């Protein structure tokens, strides 16, 4: 196996080693910790890009398979990289890089072991994207969640602890559901390997099929909790708006982990070849997604604080994705994935921007004061010193960033939010053909996709006018260069995505084609052979 083959495990191994190495370093040497962590994430970003290229140029359109411990597929655990997982890893690490850079200005001081927890969360998220085994997925999910509990509580304070308590309780209950689902699937099919499972589903007997579908449904509920589907997502706005800004920005990817797994499993296990189970759960995804978008839209309109607005927008974003997956039309998938990237980057940038904008107001300062209080006064002097090197014309830069975020989130041209929605709608109508009737649910989807953008536009306009034009205090927030750079990088990534949308959509088109042919994935996993050792015995 060449070096490229071993690259597949790097997105799990590197953050793992980095996180462990950061623990013994003294808490006061934050710059060192932050730089180490930042460097590791930078390497990960390059790895993710390399994996994207490798998966796009793989032989016969297949997936790259890494056999852990050199055990062949149904017995050993495999990591699988295809275009989708490589893309998700790149997206995650890009966001992580920006959130980390942002945190190094001040937020990583608000509590111990910030960078360690951050790297552990990357282990979990990357692992969830890579793994080809259901139980292994549970383990990575738990790593991700355990780290996210720590990050949620980062900064402490009554509000965060209360929101964290609810967040942890909900996710622990969801983990129980995850386990029940996984064990039901194992009991019915006798395998936990995703590819093997997809092979066995068409031939299941009727009573085992019933058990398996029950298991898949219970498992699905666990992911829908994570993705924030309507009756299961009430915890989300509370938790996301209470978290510290870099953490909230990173949490934007956590809902997408749920969406990713739903997309992966529904297309792999319940694709066209799954016999009578084909299309299982699509109705739930579609209608649940539509309800989530509705709830998110109302929430966005009703929010006063920007943090809550952004949290409700997270619901709109994941609701639209779920509904688009639930449509069950291959032509919609490229646009959906484009929307996933664009909206996640937009939310990430917006969460970071909120902190900068709200600094001019007293509310933000209060939270920070509480944070500093909780962790002693030792940091005060340091904080004073670091406020320097402010960006000139701060308000102008912040305003332009705010407008760009608004265009992204509302889906206005010319930024990528518009391209994404256009691609979804175009995919939907183009796939229906000439005289095929459009169902009521599809019309509702189209209407909600556009209306949710309008609601976001109205709400963001209202907040923007209040903050930028109608500010009573008139104080200009002091913003450091390493705080505004991440926001600019994220927005530039969206801009790049817009300019290169032809290339991006072609990549995503290939992704969708590969996803709609599960036999490619299955074949890659099944045909992967263990490495023969050279020398030795």
């Amino acid at each position, binding site marked *: 196996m060449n070096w490229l083959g071993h690259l597949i495990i790097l997105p799990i191994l590197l953050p793992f080693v980095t996180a462990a190495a950061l623990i013994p370093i003294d808490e006061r040497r934050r710059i060192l910790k932050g730089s180490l962590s930042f460097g590791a994430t930078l390497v990960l970003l390059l790895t993710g890009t390399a994996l994207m290229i490798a998966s796009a140029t793989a032989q016969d359109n297949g997936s790259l398979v890494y056999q852990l411990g050199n055990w062949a597929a149904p017995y050993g655990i495999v990591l699988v990289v295809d275009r989708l997982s490589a893309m998700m890893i790149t997206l995650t690490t890009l966001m992580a890089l920006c959130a980390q850079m942002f945190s190094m200005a001040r937020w990583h001081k608000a509590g111990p072991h910030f960078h360690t927890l951050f790297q552990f969360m990357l282990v979990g998220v990357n692992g969830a994207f890579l793994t080809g085994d259901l139980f292994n997925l549970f383990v990575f999910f738990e790593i991700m969640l355990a780290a996210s509990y720590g990050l949620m509580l980062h900064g402490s304070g009554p509000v965060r602890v209360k929101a964290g*308590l609810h967040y*942890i309780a909900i996710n622990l*209950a969801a983990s*129980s559901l995850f386990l*029940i689902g996984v*064990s039901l699937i*194992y*009991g019915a099919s006798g395998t936990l390997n995703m590819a093997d499972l997809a092979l066995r589903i068409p031939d299941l007997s009727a009573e085992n099929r019933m058990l398996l579908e029950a298991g898949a449904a219970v498992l699905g509920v666990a992911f829908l909790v994570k993705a924030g589907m309507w009756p299961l997502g009430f915890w989300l706005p509370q938790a996301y708006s209470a978290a510290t800004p870099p953490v909230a920005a990173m949490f934007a990817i956590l809902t997408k982990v749920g969406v990713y797994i739903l997309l992966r499993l529904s297309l792999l296990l319940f694709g066209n070849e799954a016999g009578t189970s084909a299309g299982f759960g699509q109705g739930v995804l579609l209608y649940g997604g539509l309800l989530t978008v509705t709830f998110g839209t109302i929430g966005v309109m009703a929010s006063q604080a920007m943090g809550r607005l952004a949290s409700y927008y997270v619901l709109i974003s994941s609701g639209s994705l779920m509904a688009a997956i639930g449509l069950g039309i291959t032509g919609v998938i490229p646009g959906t994935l484009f929307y996933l990237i664009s909206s996640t980057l937009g939310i990430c940038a917006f969460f970071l921007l909120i902190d900068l904008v709200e600094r001019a107001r007293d509310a933000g300062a209060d939270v920070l004061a509480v944070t500093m209080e909780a962790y002693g006064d030792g940091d005060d002097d340091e904080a004073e010193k670091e406020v320097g090197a402010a960006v000139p014309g701060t308000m102008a830069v912040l305003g332009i960033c705010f407008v760009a975020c608004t265009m992204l989130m509302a889906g206005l041209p010319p930024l990528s939010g518009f391209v994404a929605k256009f691609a979804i709608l175009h995919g939907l109508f183009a796939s229906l053909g000439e005289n095929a009737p459009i169902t009521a649910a599809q019309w509702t989807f189209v209407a909600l996709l556009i209306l949710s953008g309008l609601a976001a536009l109205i709400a963001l306009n209202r907040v923007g006018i209040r903050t930028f034009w109608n500010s009573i205090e008139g104080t200009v927030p002091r913003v450091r260069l390493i705080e505004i750079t991440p926001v600019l990088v994220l927005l530039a990534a969206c801009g790049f995505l817009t300019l290169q949308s032809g290339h991006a959509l072609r990549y995503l088109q290939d992704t969708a084609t590969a996803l709609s042919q599960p036999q490619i994935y299955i074949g890659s996993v099944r045909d992967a052979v263990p490495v023969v050792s050279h020398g030795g015995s």
Partner: protein
Amino acid sequence: MELVLSAGIGVFAGSGIWLLFRPRTYQVVVGLALLSYAVNLFIFGMGRLRLNAPPVLEKGVAGGFLTHTDPLPQALVLTAIVIGFAMTALFLVVLLASRGFTGNDHVDGREER
């Protein structure tokens, strides 16, 4: 035996869910712990119930589902127990922090009026 196991799972899960909806944080912790017991037993049940059958092969003895029990669910249960235990410990810490901040043990941080 099937009856005992299923009744056990049912009682654990039922009490766990009931406690999960109680207003005191300690009740929620105990509820989550009971729920994880129920889940662990359930995973065991999914490996099919067998008495007096070893999960590990011995040297020179051919393995099979007639003489051996399925080792996989046992491995899964072990992992689930470890993870569940760690999460309960973590939740306990958050509970104490919440108690320290709010001065009471209500899940919302304040008593209902």
